[in-house]
């Protein structure tokens, strides 16, 4: 029983980072109705820029974090311009394939610039571990949870209590209605891409700083975790993305503990497949995702 609770606790810490990735995906999908599968790789560019600053000038976490945000922003803008702004809105397939092509570019670019298998990343400031009633919460995990919670609060404020948030939600609801309401669709889409990049960069930063090292495989990893969490939660729902991230984290932690690493993958992908078939609207029960063609 204690194991079960401890695993859940670990899972929530990992899941909060997944949730941020899923929210980044959801923001982009919400306003674009197109999938940016290069979302993970754009964060990867960010953390590598952070690592470069760290290695080059032995900079600390703050400078590395700033560099991470800048890198993720630049990579996202590159993707937004080439794969989304430049391709007609109804060619969702082309945008997806194009973002994949840019992913290949980013991944190889980073691999060429950082030839080692792993690159060092500044670690989080040490926080005391917490132990209550036999349960253990690492200082790093606590920091990850707190940071993720803070980002969620700011994001909630921005989306539901600001003019930009209103424009974004209008665009997510209906591009045509937003257009006739004099919303500059291109500007809102662009800014949403940037916002998603920043949210993703926070997730990337937290994960990289917890591990203390990064690899170019981070792009694939982040895209997969974000996609899985988003689909389990329910495509197009921010609440679903949050829930999906936490569920993914908890399931992974439990499966890892009880069944081992190899089985963990089987459980996660099995769960995802089943979830899509049985519960296409996800945990949040999204009815209309806008992904279907209507009469």
């Amino acid at each position, binding site marked *: 029983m204690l194991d079960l609770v401890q695993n859940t606790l670990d899972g929530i810490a990992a899941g909060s980072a997944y949730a941020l990735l899923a929210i980044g995906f959801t923001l982009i999908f919400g306003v674009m109705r197109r999938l940016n*599968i290069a979302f993970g790789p754009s964060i990867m560019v960010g953390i590598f820029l952070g690592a470069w600053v760290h290695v080059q000038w032995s900079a600390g976490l703050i400078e590395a974090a700033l560099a991470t945000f800048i890198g993720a922003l630049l990579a996202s803008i590159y993707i937004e311009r080439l794969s989304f702004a430049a391709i007609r809105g109804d*060619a969702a397939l082309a945008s997806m394939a*194009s973002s994949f092509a840019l992913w290949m570019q980013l991944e190889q670019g980073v691999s060429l610039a950082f030839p080692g298998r792993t690159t060092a990343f500044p670690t989080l400031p040490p926080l005391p571990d917490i132990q209550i009633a036999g349960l253990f919460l690492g200082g790093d995990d606590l920091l990850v949870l707190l940071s993720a919670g803070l980002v969620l609060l700011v994001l909630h404020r921005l989306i539901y209590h600001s003019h930009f948030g209103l424009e974004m939600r209008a665009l997510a609801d209906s591009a045509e209605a937003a257009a006739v309401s004099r919303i500059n669709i291109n500007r809102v889409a662009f800014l949403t891409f940037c916002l998603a990049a920043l949210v993703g960069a926070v997730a990337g930063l937290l994960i990289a700083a917890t591990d203390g090292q990064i690899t170019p495989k981070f792009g*694939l990893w982040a895209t997969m975790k974000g996609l899985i969490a988003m689909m389990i939660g329910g495509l197009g729902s921010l609440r679903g993305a949050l829930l999906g991230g936490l569920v993914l984290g908890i399931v992974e932690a439990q499966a890892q503990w009880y069944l081992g690493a*190899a089985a963990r993958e089987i459980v996660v992908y*099995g769960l995802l497949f089943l979830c*899509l078939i049985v519960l296409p609207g996800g945990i949040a029960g999204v009815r209309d995702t806008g*992904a279907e*063609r209507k009469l």
Partner: protein
Amino acid sequence: MDPFLTSVLSNIGLFSFLALSAWLLLIGGEISFGQQAYFAIGAYASGIASAVWGWPFAVALALGTALGAGIGALVAWPAARLSGVHYAIATLAFAELTRASLNVFRYQRDIDGYLTGPDGANGFRDIRWVYEAGIAPGTYLAIIATLLLLVIVLIWLAARLNVMAQLRMVGEDPILAGMQGIRVLRWKIGAAAAAGGVAGLGGALFAHMATYVEPAQFSVMTGVHAVAYGLIGGLGTAIGPLLGVLIDVGLLESLRSLAAYRMIVFGGLVAIILILRPRGILDETLVTKVRSWARR
């Protein structure tokens, strides 16, 4: 023939199966990021058949194809009810599930003093039927080419029988197609079965050429490449995906000087092509225009 050329051409041939498989689904209006699963299933099944059970090569190929088609249909039966992103992610989930399962799949027998068969993440060694039968790489290339040609002829035949036209109807507007009497779900499942079969055949041929396969070879990257080939080359004809493979494997792999920057060059090329032609170089519009021009 020059061994390097033979190997490049064989690779082009093998990737073509995967690209055609993804293309068939694109025509039917679905994106699959998971065709590598059927490639893997074909590779493993045919490998087990020829190396462990000692079945003849042709029968092993048939098994790989049949299993690919059967499982393709089985997965599509629930998944084809989903659409768009959901279908794409469901196929991705199935493919990763397959890969993760192969990582723990062990089935080894003692063959001539060697333990032969899939050994989890360590892969599957000694699929040596082709090697033992003394088939030269050039001859094997001819076998790949012949079977690829057979698939293309089948697709051409399907086009003659209005099968491709009905699949295109389903892909372009399933609601209109349904109201014109097309049983949309059956077509989607049928397309998935055909796509699974084509990928399974390709996988079987791949396993017997490489003699060694491992789960890591059938990653998401392989599957997304397969989709990209069709989208670069164009969705208008079956030549499209082959053109896509030719551009990637053929052009860039043969230009060794570009090897280090291959993905940067290929990625940039694809991005530009997709801006100019969102449905590929040989898209439906071009095909219609060429046909219309040919009639004059």
